């Protein structure tokens, strides 16, 4: 469920990036790399788990599924927080600089 949630986040962020490409003023590209990197790592994790559990891997207990979904959503939120921090630090539109160092008339 965590893998699935992250893959959906990666796909949606890639679609948003593609829609605005080649412009990337909001640095959506970074969000794509974060989610795809995490998706690949969880894919490997899932393969290892599948080797261990075999068919039982596809029939998780409802409690485990809910917990994994909760974790997946938290992971997506953390990815967005990381992206937001990078966006505000790099400030590609110069908004922070303008609002902090605005000259008074």
């Amino acid at each position, binding site marked *: 469920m965590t893998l699935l949630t992250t893959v959906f986040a990666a796909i949606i962020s890639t679609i948003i990036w593609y829609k605005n490409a080649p412009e990337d003023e909001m640095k959506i590209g970074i969000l794509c790399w974060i989610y795809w*990197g*995490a998706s*690949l*790592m969880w894919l490997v994790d899932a393969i290892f788990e599948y080797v261990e559990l075999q068919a039982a891997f596809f029939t998780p207990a409802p409690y485990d599924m809910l917990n994994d979904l909760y974790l997946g959503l938290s*992971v997506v939120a953390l990815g967005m927080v990381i992206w937001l921090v990078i966006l505000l630090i790099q400030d590609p539109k110069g908004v922070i600089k303008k609002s902090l160092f605005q000259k008074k008339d």
Partner: protein
Amino acid sequence: MACFLVPVTEAVVTTIVGKTMKANEEKQDTFNIKEAEAVERIPFSRKLNWLSNMLWGGSALLAFEHIWHGEVVPWFPFLTAAGSPADMVEMFQEMATAGIAMAGVVTLVWLGIVAVVSGTEKKVLRSWKSEK
């Protein structure tokens, strides 16, 4: 247990190499297609940055998962598996299998992306040269 430490180590290396390359990189050849448009070869440091972003991002989210499951704690020695020798053996085994596989798969995917991008770059430059 601590599989994310392997991609983190690779991310540190790629970030250092990328920063060094960027500092040393000479400006790439620029070919003007139209007056206002230009095709520029993507510097390798930028391509390496894609790998670093995937490794750092993936590792950060994976580290969060380990905190979620109580495998990483905010006090020394930070990894619960470091508490007993038997758990440490299991941790190193996981790093050697899952950790290396994670770093390897991310690197392989990145190599694929770089190969496709380089192929497209060559095509665009070749078509520009033939038009010229």
